[in-house]
């Protein structure tokens, strides 16, 4: 339903992305994997209409599309969790949640923000993610890192109608919350949404991904279907697993630890 062909993006003299192609299909999860600075976030920002690609094509349902702002993408049902452009720190949680898609009541000049509904929805959505927020009026900037990220994810899940794009959604989350997010993604996929997921955690990527796009230094190292790759291959491609095991042994000094304070 969404496809990019040979897109590239340059920031001044910096070539962040070059000749990358991929597509997002209904009911599939596309994982974008790669080192730091590989250009994953840049690709995502192109998909979500945040950046216009400098070269290459963007096809939506087979027809060329040119989004001039994230608004256009949202209007097509594409919802995104950005890695660094999260939220407005001074605004309250519920205002942030509904920013850009405020629920309204009444009509004509009396059309107004349905505040009661907004607060209720936010509280419910967060609670179902395992985040029990004290006060939805708290300014976003005073939430903990994971709480902030949870709000962004809940928001995208709430508004994502056709495509869900998630840039390292679980990086600041606890194990429990991360699990919930993965389950959300699975649910969205099962409802027929296309999902794009960026993660550095092979334990998260493999179980849920249907298709893996590997980026390195701004270029594509290839795209693999789940059938074409085993968990071990994937993990080693991400320079993980084996190395981590080795590391574990290296670190494990087996010394008697100091006294514990229960």
């Amino acid at each position, binding site marked *: 339903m969404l496809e990019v062909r040979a897109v590239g993006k340059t920031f001044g003299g910096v070539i962040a992305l070059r000749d990358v192609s991929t597509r997002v299909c209904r009911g599939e999860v596309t994982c974008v994997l790669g080192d730091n600075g590989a250009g994953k976030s840049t690709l995502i920002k192109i998909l979500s209409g945040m950046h216009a690609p400098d070269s290459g094509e963007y096809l939506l349902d087979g027809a060329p599309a040119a989004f001039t702002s994230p608004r256009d993408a949202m209007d097509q049902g594409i919802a995104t969790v950005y890695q660094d452009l999260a939220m407005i720190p001074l*605004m309250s949680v519920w205002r942030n949640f509904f920013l*850009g898609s405020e629920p309204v009541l009444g009509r004509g000049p009396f059309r107004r923000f349905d505040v009661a509904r907004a607060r209720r929805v936010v509280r419910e959505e967060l609670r179902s993610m395992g985040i029990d927020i004290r006060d939805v009026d708290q300014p976003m900037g005073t939430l903990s890192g994971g709480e902030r990220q949870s709000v962004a994810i809940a928001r995208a899940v709430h508004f994502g109608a056709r495509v869900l794009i998630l840039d390292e959604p679980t990086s600041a989350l606890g194990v429990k919350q991360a699990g919930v997010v993965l389950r959300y993604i699975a649910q969205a996929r099962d409802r027929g949404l296309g999902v794009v997921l960026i993660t550095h955690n092979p334990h998260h990527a493999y179980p849920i991904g249907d298709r893996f796009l590997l980026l390195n230094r701004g270029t594509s190292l290839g795209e693999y279907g789940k059938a074409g790759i085993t968990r071990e291959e994937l993990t080693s491609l991400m320079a993980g697993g084996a190395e981590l095991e080795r590391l574990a042994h290296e670190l494990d000094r087996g010394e008697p630890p100091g006294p514990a304070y229960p």
Partner: protein
Amino acid sequence: MTVADERLARTGAARRLLVRPELGAMVGAVAVFAFFASQSATFRSIEGVANWLDPASTLGIMAVAIALLMIGGEFDLSAGVLTGTTGLITVILATRYGLSVWTAMLVSLAAALLVGFLNGLIVVRTGLPSFIVTLGTFLMLQGVNLGVTKALTGTVQVGGLRGAEGYEGARAVLAGTFPAGGTDFRVAVLWWLGVTALATWVLMRTRAGNRIFAVGGDARAARAAGVPAERTKIALFMTTAVAAWLVGSILALRFTSVQANSGIGQEFVYIIAAVIGGCLLTGGYGSAIGAAIGAVIFGMADKGIVFAGWDADWFTFFLGAMLLLATLANRLVRRYAEEVRR
């Protein structure tokens, strides 16, 4: 669970009220009022109140509009001189070109909207800071006001609106008085209350309000969330221009003549009132009621010094001290409120 979350200290309902950003400004206002009321009996009399509410009301209309703009992360230095421009257009058209006052006001409204639109357009298109762009329009309008007035009339002021068609009606609506409590108040006070209420409603209870906070808080993040940031900002500049037109018309109808340099220097008073009322200069935070109260604080301090009969040479000294103290009181209350909740 949230109702009785063990991680929340108890907060009484009365104390919860304290957290409204306006309350800090309110306390500042009460302090200034109490101070001058103790200094001068006339100040606290109903005539005195009507007197200092009069300039506070026109200032307040502008301060509220500027507050919206500042919450949206932008400045408008051309707003003060635009009140002069609109007044000049109205008076010149009504007296030299025989238009009725109402038609002349419509034309000046269109001109104001155009200026606001251009301000906004240049800001969003070029990405220059609005401080510089509106400084440019400020200077240019100032030149236009003087140059055109001189060219058309040979003097630096135009007058004679009293004789124009429709003057009485327009004056009654915009520049008349209404009796209350045994004295006459200016209708501008009602306009000011209306504008404040409308702006508060927009800010707190509409989509537009949410978007204004967002573009001021972080324009990039707001855009990423799907807020049409450019449109929002242009609309804010146009709103400010409409407020300038309203105030310009009120003053023109009231004095029936306009000077070419009128409004110059007021742009900073508007910003000051908004900041006293709790708006952040960096955007994303503030309230319309706060700005309205900021205008009252400024108006009271400004007039109170005169009522108290202090030495005119030291006028600005007292004014500065008053403003500093009022803002400090505001800040202290806000801090206390934050202790109480959040």
